[in-house]
């Protein structure tokens, strides 16, 4: 389980545009670097990020090796109702990590 830092405002007014910030620990190995033995280090990146809000997808991203290590992604959404945001990262090995954050909307 890679470490993550997620910033979802704990409360928001209905209709307010909120910013969600996410950071996950990952080397994002491009596949273009050579190791000390001269061989190419194989690519190993997080290539997909998805955010759902009470089950409905509100944002997703396809990532390529040009994304920096420890991918940082921020995006906006309208606070519609209280509930849970689920953030998922999928890497080249096919593994998905999901973190959740709650929000209360007045």
């Amino acid at each position: 389980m890679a470490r993550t830092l997620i910033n979802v405002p704990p409360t928001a007014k209905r209709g307010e545009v909120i910013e969600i910030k996410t950071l996950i620990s990952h080397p994002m190995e491009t596949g273009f670097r050579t190791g000390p033995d001269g061989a190419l280090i194989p690519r190993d990146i997080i290539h997909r990020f998805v955010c759902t809000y009470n089950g409905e997808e509100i944002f997703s991203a396809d990532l390529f090796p040009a994304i920096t290590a420890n991918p940082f992604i921020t995006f906006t959404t309208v606070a519609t109702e209280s509930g849970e945001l689920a953030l998922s990262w999928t890497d080249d090995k096919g593994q998905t990590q999901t973190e959740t954050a709650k929000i209360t909307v007045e």
Partner: protein
Amino acid sequence: MILATRRDILRTGAALGTLLLVRPVMAKPADMEAAIRAFTGTAPINSGKVELVLPALVENGNSVPLTVNVAHWMEPNDYMKTIAIFNEKNPQPNVAIFHLTPRAGRATVSTRIRLGDSQKLTAIAQLSDGSFWSDEAEVIVTLPACAES
């Protein structure tokens, strides 16, 4: 302050111990054009509605902050659904593709990217009606001083 030309500065920086990694064959502007065409097909690309923000001179090419602002309030039937970022000179022309929904409000997406050289970046955004909109940014990337050896 007598530093003659930018090339002199770059040479100075290079010789002061920065490791020049053996780079793979770098993409050319033509590759970026091809990747953009693959994304848009033959449709015309308009200017506007999307703003690509990058620093003009980066602190370090390994971590460049990038922001895309959509100047278009998202409505259920009229929203910016995809934003694709392309670059000219990295080994691959793609950087990221963001998929938005009407729930984004006034959409702003940020991330941090790697840039191997000074180059142009292009953001191509597709509206829900199928039209394409774009913005560009030019970035200068220099070698860092005192890198790993």
